[in-house]
């Protein structure tokens, strides 16, 4: 089996990648497996000892996943659900989730083939970093960043020059907490995030292996590649927003642009939703190039 795609049901990006792979390769060489199929697999045998771990995994459709004969894995798993424990006591259900998560983490980490979106202590299928961490990684990579601050009580501390935001009880499309801009007169004592003001425009760059796709890709090519290396992620979406006209900012390369916008990193995600055909092609090309021989 050359390509194994692991994803949650409804993961549009994973399904598009699978469809593209199937258009290029015989269907028996491409397998799409959902998280639930892994949880319901009737035969799991994960052995560890002195030698390299060996796993025998048979799915409910009788497919045997040959852990030592896979070309490459595209891993889009993020969490575990255990539907067959839905009616169990909460403690038992939580225990089941933790146990399956632990097994999947160990299995993915033990695979001898390349795994795009490596499983680690930071996440099952994405290197989960906080906003502060991503911004610092961007700084280390040489990218300019949107200023970011937090105050648990703006009466005690507030950021001058930055705009206030409250965290919403919902997620954005990348699965991160959403922020809502609020009027400074409403802030009061509510815990508040502050962001450097930007224009209401954004540019996204997708980093796929050594490639960067997007209007700002060539301008920040070296820095984006460095960011991917520093974060240990082969798939990244970097969102840039402009601060408008003004002098160059410190901490990044010269970013004077034709329209005088100074672009800076406002968000990074290691779990991007990808729909554009050229981007899907780039992911497939990456998987092809990384297959173990």
């Amino acid at each position, binding site marked *: 089996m050359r390509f194994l795609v692991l994803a949650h049901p409804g993961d549009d990006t994973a399904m598009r990648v699978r469809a593209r792979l199937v258009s290029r390769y015989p269907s028996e060489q491409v397998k799409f497996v959902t998280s639930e199929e892994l949880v319901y697999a009737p035969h799991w045998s994960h052995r560890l000892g002195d030698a390299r771990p060996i796993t025998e995994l048979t799915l409910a459709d009788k497919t045997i996943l040959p852990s030592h004969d896979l070309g490459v894995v595209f891993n889009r798993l993020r969490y575990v659900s255990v539907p067959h424990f839905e009616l169990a006591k909460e403690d038992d259900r939580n225990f089941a989730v*933790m146990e399956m998560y632990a097994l999947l983490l160990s299995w993915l980490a033990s695979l001898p083939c390349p795994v795009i979106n490596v499983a680690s202590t930071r996440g099952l299928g994405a290197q989960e970093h906080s906003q502060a961490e991503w911004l610092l990684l961007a700084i280390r990579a040489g990218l300019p960043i949107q200023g970011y601050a937090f105050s648990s009580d703006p009466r005690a501390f507030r950021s001058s020059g930055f705009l206030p935001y409250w965290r919403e009880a919902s997620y954005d499309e990348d699965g991160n907490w959403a922020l809502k801009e609020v009027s400074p007169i409403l802030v009061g004592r509510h815990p508040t995030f502050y962001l450097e003001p930007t224009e209401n425009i954004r540019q996204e760059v997708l980093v796929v292996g050594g490639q960067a796709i997007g209007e700002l890709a060539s301008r920040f090519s070296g820095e984006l590649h460095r960011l991917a290396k520093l974060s240990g992620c082969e798939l990244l979406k970097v969102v840039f927003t402009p601060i408008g006209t003004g002098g160059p900012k410190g901490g990044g390369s010269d970013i004077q642009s034709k329209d005088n916008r100074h672009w800076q990193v406002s968000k990074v995600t290691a779990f991007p939703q990808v729909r554009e055909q050229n981007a899907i092609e780039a992911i497939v090309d990456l998987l092809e190039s990384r297959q173990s021989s």
Partner: protein
Amino acid sequence: MILLMGIPSEQPLRMVIEAAESHRIPYVLFNQRESQFADLYLEITNGKVVGTLRIHEVDWPLSSFTGVYARMMDYHDLPENQPRGRSSPDLENIQKSFLLHEMLFEWLEITPCRVMNRNSAMTSNLSKPYQAQWITRVGFQTPTTIITNDPDEVRDFLRKHRRVVFKSISSVRSIVRFLSDIKIKDLEKVRYLPTQFQEFIPGTNIRVHIVGEQAFATEINTEALDYRYAGRDDLDVNMTPFELPMEIKERCIALSKLLNLPLCGIDLKRTPEGEYYCFEVNPSPGYSYYQVNTGQDIAAAIVHYLSQPIQEVSVGISKSPGSESI
């Protein structure tokens, strides 16, 4: 100046506080039970991380801390965030508590000062077999293990190894039990959830606490299979300080560095033949239990380690095992 975070009545933190006081190491205490009297300001701009921690109206610049001992409980479980009788907790206070704790953890990941321990490193313990793969990298042996949902595999494993124990795969604490303790028909239950079975390794338990470059080894003698629960079986536990062979000590220190856990409790077993097996690395060890029983001054080692000047004044991201560069 070092920062101590958690609940000060809890023995591990209390002993660190006492050690800081007796060794005259200045410290600031963030008491989780009083987090409503604390505030945090954190800013990232122009390539720098700056911030202030305010506790009971006293401001501490985050840059003033050389080290942090963080032994915090989940903010959900704090009594202040729980209902009291018929009174619901204040939702505003709960939200503040949630964000304050989250941002403190975020700061701990990016601060250049020494931290015992960063969350991203502690999560290696979420999966024992995952951690075992790291343990073998430093040259330790680990018990032969199978994680399976197939009863036939379990029977086959039992035939090969004769004495087999079973335990949780994740960090959820479980009591280690011999497989023979359960009825054979209960083996069918593994079909619902893969379970971890290991060959039983006979020998003497040794717990090694690593604090930076120091190793404190404790030999534990007991008849109990799981010495942590010896009392339940009315069995005694006897602990004594133990001098590790240099090679094993170096492996333990290497393991703590590999896992980015400058404070950890490593569970070893020495067989009658003198071989050492490693079972687990505990990222938030209850070292105080061992200190009380042996007199090993682990708390002092902690405060001295944390009070060392920061050598690298650069912002960075803590390295977590598995997140290696491309």
